[in-house]
């Protein structure tokens, strides 16, 4: 892992200046045909099988220098597998990789990095007990006879973070103490710390809020302006339209469309190529008349010092309440506190008028269910079969005298798998082998089994593909129709506005606005969450 002779810090400083200038220029619609850079990467007939699954089944891909090439596909289509093959993590079973005009094989991640391919993986790949700088330069540290040059690394890291718009993150801070969004930024910093010709981003925006996504796009534009190619994966079509140049669509491990223009291809086309059918990407209708019942959940003056303060809210049976806010506005903490997973410093939580005793157990007994934010660390038993993950909170319900009923559990899990379009559908497969989006479906599916009166959903659609997302919305709405109360946290404002009946806007740990969803539009909410001018006069 040789380091460039001259300090890349200075080199990229100039690049930043140049790129910033171009970014500030009025945004040009870059039509697909302006991407005239030479082809840096060409994949032909790539095949990769896992035990029991053909994850890649003849993929074609062509990426040009200076373009943002988007990969689209349903959950489990093989996008992450594809980029892992490119990054040297997996070895393809067959097919050709042509890198900058020459056939290449990347035997390990090191080889890929050396060749100039940097990757931001879908699952956070940071070391919790190393500092931000050490994580950014992990594996290619600045060093002198084996000794780490900490000053130099810190300086360069600070510069990259500044470039990412997060100069406030101290390079010496342990990654453990960063929230998820901060970690994502460190992941990006790592990719930028390489002198890469191609940067692959696997759903980088999944844990980012809107302002952060803007930042990310600014960086991507800087990169492409320098002739660096970017492969961009996201389930949010609007992002692809904004940042993408060309799109390749994968379905069941095959390329079903290549090099479509990102801006002009009709959504209908994209979706049908992904799923084999067209999906009207709309939110289910709200009931016309107010069908919501009595107050199910009442929260009064809930406070956790340093996280959120004096939050009062209520959720009625059959009602969907959405909470909008920036990353770090304390929504996850609020949800976890309501759920009893954290102890409040002040305030009260009542279900059906009865105050809850502290602890998750009593919340679950009272009929609450929560799909937490971080699926891997908070929700899944990765080595266990899908069905056991789906019934993790409810297996006691199917048990008799303490003896579990596996057949019933499987049947229930099968039902969920079908509803949420889990793929592969086999519920005996370990969750570990599922794609990220499918894992998310398992997490949410756990609480759809019935018996739940109040559903707390924290970013339920993170990484879920368009088709399944529509299904999920549908399920949530139908649960509400059956009288279940839903409290929904999402960083996607349209999702909150489209799905919820009533919306709370949180900023810096406080509820700054509460209104029926119909009374708000996206811009108002965005202004609110970002401490905009609308604050004055807006009733809290």
């Amino acid at each position, binding site marked *: 892992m040789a380091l460039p002779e001259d300090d890349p810090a200075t080199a990229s400083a100039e690049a930043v200046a140049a790129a910033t200038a171009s970014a500030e220029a009025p945004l040009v619609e870059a039509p697909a045909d302006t991407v005239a850079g030479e082809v840096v990467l060409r994949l032909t007939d790539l095949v990769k099988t896992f035990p*029991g699954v053909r994850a890649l089944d003849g993929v074609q891909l062509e990426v040009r220098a200076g373009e943002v090439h988007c990969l689209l596909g349903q959950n489990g289509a093989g996008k992450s597998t594809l980029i892992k093959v490119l990054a040297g993590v997996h070895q393809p079973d067959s097919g050709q990789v042509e890198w900058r005009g020459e056939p290449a094989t990347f035997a390990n991640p090191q080889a890929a990095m050396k060749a100039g391919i940097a990757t931001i993986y879908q699952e956070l790949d940071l070391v919790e007990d190393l500092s931000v700088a050490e994580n950014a330069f992990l594996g290619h540290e600045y060093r002198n006879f084996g000794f780490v040059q900490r000053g130099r690394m810190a300086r360069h890291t600070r510069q990259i973070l500044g470039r990412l718009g997060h100069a406030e993150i101290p390079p010496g801070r342990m990654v453990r103490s960063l929230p998820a969004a901060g970690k994502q930024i460190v992941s990006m910093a790592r990719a930028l710390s390489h002198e890469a010709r191609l940067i692959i981003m696997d759903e980088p925006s999944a844990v980012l809020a809107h302002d952060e996504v803007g930042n990310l796009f600014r960086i991507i534009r800087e990169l492409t302006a320098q002739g660096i190619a970017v492969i961009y994966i996201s389930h949010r079509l609007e992002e692809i339209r904004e940042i993408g140049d060309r799109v390749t669509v994968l379905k069941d491990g095959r390329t079903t469309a290549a090099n479509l223009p990102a801006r002009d291809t009709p959504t209908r086309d994209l979706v*049908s190529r992904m799923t*084999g059918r*067209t*999906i009207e990407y709309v939110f289910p209708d709200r009931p016309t008349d107010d069908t919501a019942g009595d107050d199910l959940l009442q929260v009064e003056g809930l406070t956790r010092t340093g996280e959120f303060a004096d939050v009062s809210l209520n959720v009625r049976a059959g009602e969907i309440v959405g909470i909008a806010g920036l990353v770090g506005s304390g929504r996850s903490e609020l949800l976890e506190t309501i759920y009893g997973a954290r102890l409040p410093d002040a305030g009260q939580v009542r279900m059906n008028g009865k105050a809850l005793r502290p602890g998750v157990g009593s919340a679950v007994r009272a009929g609450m269910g929560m799909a937490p934010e971080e699926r891997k660390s908070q*929700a899944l038993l990765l080595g266990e079969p899908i069905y056991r993950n789906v019934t993790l909170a409810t297996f006691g319900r199917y048990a008799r005298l303490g*003896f579990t009923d596996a057949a019933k559990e499987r049947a229930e899990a099968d039902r969920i798998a079908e509803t949420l379009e889990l793929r592969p559908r086999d519920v005996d497969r370990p969750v570990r082998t599922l794609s990220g989006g499918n894992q998310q479906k398992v997490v949410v599916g756990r609480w759809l089994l019935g018996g739940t009166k109040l559903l707390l959903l924290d970013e339920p659609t993170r990484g879920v593909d368009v088709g399944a997302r*529509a299904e999920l919305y549908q399920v949530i709405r139908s649960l509400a129709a059956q009288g279940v109360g839903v409290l929904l946290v999402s960083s996607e404002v349209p999702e909150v506005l489209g799905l919820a009946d009533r919306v709370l806007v949180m900023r810096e740990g406080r509820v700054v606005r509460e209104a029926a969803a119909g009374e708000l539009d996206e811009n108002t909410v965005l202004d609110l969450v970002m401490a905009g001018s609308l604050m004055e006069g807006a009733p809290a």
Partner: protein
Amino acid sequence: MSDATPTPTATPERPQLPAQSPPVDPAETAVASDKATSGRLSWWRGDGGDGAKRNLGLIGVLVALIVVGAITKPDLYGDPNWVWNNVLAILQLASVVGVVTVGMTFVIIGGGIDLSVGAIVALAGVWCTTVATQNFGAGGMIFTALVVGICVGLVNGVLISYGRLVPFIATLAMLVAARGLAASISNKQTQVSSSTFINDIAARKVIGIPILVYILGAVVLAGWVLLNRTTFGRRTIAVGGNPEAARLAGINVRRHTMFLYALSGLCCGIAAIMLTSQATSAQAAMANLYELDAIAAAIIGGTLLSGGRGTIVGSLLGVIIFATITNLFAINGLSIEAQNMVKGGIIVAAVLIQQFQYKSVTRLLARNRVTTA
């Protein structure tokens, strides 16, 4: 609810795709792959097929060991009577550690470790053979051993789950303390059991099989059912696999952890009675290093030291493998140093054989699966 809103609608005309393969109906593919996978997988259903496949590997190791025995001692292995007796001897040798290992397996699957098992066996054994206890007869002795085991296990559990001590340290402290207490109770003497009932447990056979082997069988069966068929077992796997997820799913992680150590203590109490019966006596130094034996057996048997995965059958096979190795050395009359050198090699070889078998079995199944897909 499907017709509540018109969301996913299939379009009649399919878009032109550059895909080489003829377009397939998505529903069809799903069904096909479903059949292909779960049909085959159903074989291993019930106890995490992984474990079952791993256990095949262990049985392979066992067979290899027996073959080595038969080659080195053809005269002995030529006598079926002797062979049967030897199988019983191996099982008897495995019985005490086996019972301890069942408890240990639960603790390790639950994300912990119990270094105090040997000490608990010794303490329970010594306590149940004091003169005062022996006066209450065999019933009193058995009761004492079990209660001591459970109580010490509970102390471990409370320290770990409510005192938030690292299991390694808490049970190490208990190891030291329990051995000290045992030495003080027994006044460092070997206490002879004068109860014929107790002593007969190890001496008697029923239908030609030693009672100790029945006890081992009963404990293993109970452990298997508990782990694979009850909510307690499911909670154990959840607590060990991802404690945060378990907590957020409404499981009382701390209380469950406490129970796991109490369960291990109970197993130690049972083992104490068995060992006291075998030795017709108890002393503070007995069951020396059982913690290592039990942990090693569980791990060889496929239990993950980091928790969340393991099988009772694997642990049993692990114990039997170690007992067979000891037996192999004994019948060959190896000197202890030669024995130790060879033992290290055998352990390594055993794991390698097992891994190899496991992999090839998995690959075989995978290949079949892919071709049918």
